[in-house]
């Protein structure tokens, strides 16, 4: 809460400094690094006010309602992508952990998959999806899963390898089979690492869903909302900011939900920090 207040104070304070130094002349004066006028940085009060007004003349509901509905829509796609991506990421991590040869050969490609710009791949996935007659939101979920799986894979791998050599020797002294070692030692040891990745992946899945919505033309999600408000930025910057904050809030909330699940599954002593 206190951090939030400080951030708000910084926002308004920056604008106040801008007003004192430049008046409200447009940027080009080179005195402030970021424009402080009302178009680039609307007053926080105005942003809040815009939430309770209709986004367009003639629409019936207020901005807040629009944002919430589209956020929920996007969240469902992201959740599907998150679940699918996490399961896939976990399975992949387990496979790579078991077969060193696979890890050595596949890892470069897996890393490369994440460096390809998503904005370039997303339209391709959408087009393939429509060719295969998949509902549009499936493509979005796939794009979301694409971003989600990587942290889970890496952390699963790390977690499966985390037991110290003595713990492994112990199992070997019991003549335990590989399956027993996996089930009784490596998987439980990996769990805290997996949850760390899941918390990160939760917010990433939202980003993936929003990016996925852009080329797919889905009207009801946050992607379309953000796009529209960015077109009409000059006439109403508050709306865009409100939508941006809304998207960020959605990512945070999803991550917090996963963190709560972690609290239930892992007792205090087992959670990794951050």
């Amino acid at each position: 809460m206190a951090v939030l207040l400080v951030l708000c104070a910084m926002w308004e304070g920056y604008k106040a400094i801008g007003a004192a130094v430049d008046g409200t002349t447009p940027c080009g004066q080179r005195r402030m690094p970021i424009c402080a006028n009302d178009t680039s940085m609307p007053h926080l009060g105005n942003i809040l006010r815009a939430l309770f007004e209709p986004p367009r003349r003639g629409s019936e509901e207020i901005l807040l309602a629009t944002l919430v509905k589209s956020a929920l829509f996007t969240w469902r796609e992201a959740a599907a992508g998150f679940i699918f991506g996490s399961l896939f990421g976990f399975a992949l991590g387990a496979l790579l952990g078991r077969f060193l040869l696979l890890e050595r050969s596949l890892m470069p490609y897996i890393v490369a998959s994440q460096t390809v710009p998503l904005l370039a791949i997303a339209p391709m996935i959408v087009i393939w999806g429509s060719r295969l007659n998949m509902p549009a939101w499936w493509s979005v979920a796939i794009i979301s899963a694409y971003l989600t799986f990587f942290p889970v894979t890496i952390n699963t791998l790390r977690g499966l390898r985390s037991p110290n050599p003595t713990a492994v020797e112990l199992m070997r002294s019991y003549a335990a089979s590989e399956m027993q070692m996996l089930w009784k030692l490596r998987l439980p040891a990996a769990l805290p690492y997996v949850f760390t990745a899941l918390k990160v992946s939760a917010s990433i899945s939202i980003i993936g869903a929003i990016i996925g919505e852009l080329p797919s033309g889905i009207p009801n999600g946050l992607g379309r909302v953000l796009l529209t408000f960015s077109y009409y930025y000059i006439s109403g910057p508050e709306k865009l900011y409100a939508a941006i904050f809304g998207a960020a809030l959605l990512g945070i909330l999803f991550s917090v939900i996963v963190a709560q699940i972690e609290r239930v599954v892992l007792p205090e002593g087992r959670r990794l920090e951050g």
Partner: protein
Amino acid sequence: MPLTDHQSVIAIQGVSKVFNQGRDNRVAALENINVEIRAGELVSLLGPSGCGKSTLLRVIGDLTSPTGGQVRINGKAAPQARLDRDYGMVFQQATLYDWRSVSKNVQLPLEVMNYPKAKRETRAAEMLKLVQLEEFGRHYPWQLSGGMQQRVAIARALAFEPSILLMDEPFGALDEMTRERMQLELLRIWGQTKTTVVFVTHSIPEAVFLSSRVVVMSARPGRVSGVIEIDLPYPRGFETREHPHFFQKITEVRECLRREEVKGSTT
């Protein structure tokens, strides 16, 4: 099951172990080790760091294989003894799994060996009683002190009634007072279970206090420099530590170690 006649339970013949054979960083960790251990004995492997005592313990336990010679345990080759679960092992770090309660930790080997659930739970309770931690079954490892964790590790190692216990500096990470208490504990447990114990340590008083024989090892390469009989009577207690014969034996062991050190530095 513990054997009652005095044949050798562990026979180490001509064992050598070389790491990185054929390469520049070749290390002869063990060279021509010959040791025989009889049933029910408590034997220490004592020596400075690098003398190969932990390596020898791992060779006995088939956690690493020797480059030469052979090990027979209960008349079988070492790998077979491991598959038959003839021994339990205790390491310097207790290595309890911290997602399991104390009782579940003790049950771990029993789960691997497919004991039925009821039997597992009774055995775990019995073993925790043996190490005097019976109220701590539901606790988690991080809630216990180092000494208590090692007691759980010992309970775990004995859970499936092995005839042999291999211990790799189990009290090395504990403070002096706890260590002395744990030594007494170990003697008590050993007296009750009559397991054959191979105990690796670098502490001379510990080796002399616990064992019936001390195998003194020297480093570079790892060799047996002498085997010293400790003829102090059992059961031993804290008064043994003040017995003059105790100090004589300590001196004898120390001399043996120093002889090797001197030999090593002049060659």
